[in-house]
């Protein structure tokens, strides 16, 4: 099987799945729809695995597989063709997307079986995967942008899946518009890069990236990368444009799992990693990214504390984990960022699906205050959820611990890192541990607050199997990239992750110049403090929410004003509406009234009236009175005569 065919099959399988389901979207046979969609994913997963092993077989330097299908744009010397590249980075992304995707398709068969639009749901899902694959495999920024847009569209379609409910439809719209704003910035970045480098191909761009660091803010690379980063914030829900993610929970839970945990939100991080040489040569952008990443992590974690909807909590935790990834990328630890992306994909997808099965069991009840003590009823969901919880709070030896710790260490140790960033990271970790434990306590442990009408039950096999697989992955995936410090005690497991990414990631130039090298003991102390702090906040949350339920409220009243601020999500939505959206609408209304109604319409009416009046005027000439005609003739004659005489 040559590579071209493999990539083609990989790409076309979800597309075919989408088309088949698309044409029979009215049928409610969820088994058929589900099986078509899932089999399409399985095919592309198999191809991804084959490709991965093909890459492994290659020598490290030339680990790239190219496939060009047709010339898309050929204007002058600017040529973009539908070219796809599989190399170290995109192969990992492929595995995550197709792997997690297949599991989520499997899960959603069970989850969506009672829904009328199930076939439509599966066709959207397949279409989403197809777009994500284009985004990831694209060999130029423009092809990536196609995927970028396609993904935005599918997220809109899937969030607003139950569009009959106006709130859900509004959420879909909100997601789409915020993404579009981000995309606009992305496009500007594209133009700037094209203007300065003349090409959009990743390989060429990375090669052209200037070796010297760009000092000022107005440089081409800095501006371009900054714009790209703003596009990334839109897609990956960072500080300015994150507002759409919490509302995106309006969509079905598997959708949130797939799109808002594993794949779409990571697109921004993937883009930065893909263009890391370019970002490296723009230190100021890196600094901005790091700061925003850290800020988002802390801010989202605080909001997570006060949320009562199980999916909202997970949504804010996603935002904060993405903050961590951007923090890693901001300080130059592209490998750590990539690793956290992978581990996060696993345990967050796991938790979302777990929440999905909880909601499924609780007959669409999402408020954690009405849950509790589900441990007894949903054994598998509970234990898989526990795995996810341990991973996310960074319990040692679990995947979350390795990737998060790596990020924190780099935040401190990297030449572009800073102690402040490390402190923010640790605070974020503490908060994450607290609200995750709160979630666990309120839903699974503690007294059952479920009202009589609902009697929760364990989900069917098709939903639990994916949970189990993901739980295993969440637990084990950390060992792929064990930091050197720990690996000595664990029998020298080689850090596969670094070797794998090493040829693609560009080292920070400052590393060579740097005089100070951090000692191993330093690393241990930092690691120790972060773990201890995280575990202590977890136990505190455990105690507050299982033993003494009332204590949470007491604390809330103690810091009333702060609590209200956080509870209302810092009034960001209200601010946006007040400051930007409403004035915009008001202005457009005014414009409509003055320009359209009064000016343009008036002009058109003027023209029509003119013709009508002249018509009426001329009509009187034709009244059949012969003598009048004779008169006109004679007047004409008189005119001609006088003209001739006067001349």
């Amino acid at each position: 099987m040559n590579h071209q065919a493999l990539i083609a099959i990989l790409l076309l399988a979800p597309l075919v799945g989408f088309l088949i389901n698309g044409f029979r979207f009215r049928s409610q046979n969820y088994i058929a729809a589900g099986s078509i969609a899932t089999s399409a994913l399985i095919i592309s997963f198999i191809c991804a695995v084959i490709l991965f092993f093909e890459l492994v077989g290659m020598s490290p330097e030339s680990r790239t597989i190219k496939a060009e299908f047709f010339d898309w744009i050929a204007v002058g010397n600017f040529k973009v063709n539908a070219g796809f590249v599989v190399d170290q980075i995109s192969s990992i992304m492929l595995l995550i997307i197709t792997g997690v995707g297949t599991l989520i398709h499997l899960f959603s068969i069970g989850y969506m079986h009672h829904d009328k639009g199930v076939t439509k749901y599966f066709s959207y899902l397949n279409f989403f995967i197809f777009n994500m694959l284009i985004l990831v495999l694209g060999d130029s920024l423009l092809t990536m942008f196609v995927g970028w847009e396609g993904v935005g569209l599918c997220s809109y379609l899937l969030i607003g899946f139950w569009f009959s409910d106006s709130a859900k439809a509004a959420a879909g719209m909100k997601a789409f518009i915020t993404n579009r704003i981000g995309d606009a910035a992305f496009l500007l970045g594209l133009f700037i890069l094209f203007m300065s480098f003349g090409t959009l191909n990743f390989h060429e761009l990375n090669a052209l990236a200037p070796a010297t660091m760009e000092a000022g803010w107005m440089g081409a690379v800095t501006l371009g990368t900054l714009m790209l980063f703003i596009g990334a914030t839109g897609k990956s829900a960072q500080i300015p444009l994150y507002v759409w993610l919490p509302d995106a929970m309006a969509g079905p839970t598997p959708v949130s799992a797939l799109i808002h945990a594993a794949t779409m939100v990571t697109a921004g991080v993937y883009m930065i990693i893909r263009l890391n040489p370019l970002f490296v040569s723009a230190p100021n952008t890196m600094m901005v990214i790091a700061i925003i990443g850290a800020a988002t992590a802390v801010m989202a974690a605080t909001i997570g504390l006060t949320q009562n909807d199980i999916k909202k909590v997970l949504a804010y935790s996603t935002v904060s984990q993405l903050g961590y990834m951007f923090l890693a990328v901001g300080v130059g630890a592209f490998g750590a960022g990539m690793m956290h992306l992978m581990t996060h994909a696993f345990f967050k997808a796991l938790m979302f699906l777990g929440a999905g099965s909880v909601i499924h069991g609780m007959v669409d009840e999402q408020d954690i205050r009405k849950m509790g003590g589900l441990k007894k009823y949903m054994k598998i969901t509970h234990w898989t959820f526990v795995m996810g919880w341990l991973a996310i709070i960074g319990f040692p030896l679990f995947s979350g611990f390795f990737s998060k710790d790596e990020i924190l260490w780099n935040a401190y140790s990297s030449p572009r890192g800073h102690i402040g960033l490390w402190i923010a990271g640790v605070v974020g970790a503490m908060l994450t541990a607290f609200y995750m434990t709160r979630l666990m306590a309120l839903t699974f442990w503690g007294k059952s607050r479920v009202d009589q009408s609902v009697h929760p039950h364990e989900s069917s096999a098709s939903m639990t199997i994916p949970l189990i697989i993901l739980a295993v992955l969440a637990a084990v995936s950390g060992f792929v990239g064990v930091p050197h410090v720990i690996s000595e005690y664990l029998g020298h497991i080689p850090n596969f992750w670094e070797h794998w990414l090493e040829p693609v990631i560009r080292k920070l130039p400052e590393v060579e110049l740097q005089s100070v090298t951090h000692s191993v003991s330093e690393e241990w102390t930092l690691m120790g403090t972060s773990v201890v702090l995280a575990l202590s906040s977890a136990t505190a949350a455990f105690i507050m929410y299982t033993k003494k339920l009332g204590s949470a409220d007491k604390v809330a009243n103690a810091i009333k004003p702060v609590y209200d601020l956080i509870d209302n999500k810092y009034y960001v939505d209200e601010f946006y509406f007040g400051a930007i959206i409403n004035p915009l609408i008001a202005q457009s209304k005014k414009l409509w009234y003055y320009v359209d109604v009064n000016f343009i319409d008036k002009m058109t009416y003027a023209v029509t009236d003119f013709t009508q009046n002249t018509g009426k005027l001329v009509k009187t000439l034709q009244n059949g009175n012969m003598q009048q005609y004779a008169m006109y003739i004679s007047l004409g004659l008189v005119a001609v005569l006088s003209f001739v005489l006067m001349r």
Partner: protein
Amino acid sequence: MSMDTVLFWFLSLIVIVPALAVVLLSNPVYSALSLVMTMVGVAAVFATLNAYFLAGVQLIVYTGAVMVLFVMVLMLFDLKHDLQTFSRGKVSGFLKIAGVGVMAGLLVGAISLATKKPSLIVEGSPLANELAAAAASGADNTKILAENLFLRNMLGFEILGVLLLVIAVGTVALSRSKGGTHARD
């Protein structure tokens, strides 16, 4: 005051006064008869212009045939006199009269202006003399007229023959039609 001048002024009187009567008299029969008078006057004017045959033809064709038809039709209709002889309408009326007035002024102006230009044939030229002699001879210039008519304008002559035939057929068909689809009598 040679004979011709007196004759011209008298004849122009005979032509113009009945012409005005044609337009002004309210009883159409009277205007028809005054038109006959005008035709006779015009025939006399032709005579003063040495076009004797034309004067005769004018008398026969116009006075003898066309006006008879007019008078006969008028008498057949037994129209005593019109209720409104002139078409009403203040503005259009004024416009018409103004138009006609200005027309008359312009025409007379044009003609008087024309005197400035030399006549087509220079007075003294041999051609003028020869033609003048022929004209002055008082010989009936019908010969020249006939020659011109039959030799040079043969086509016109034949077409007119056809025209007269066509009109004969047309008018007979027209008059014999029952006056449209639902004539009363």
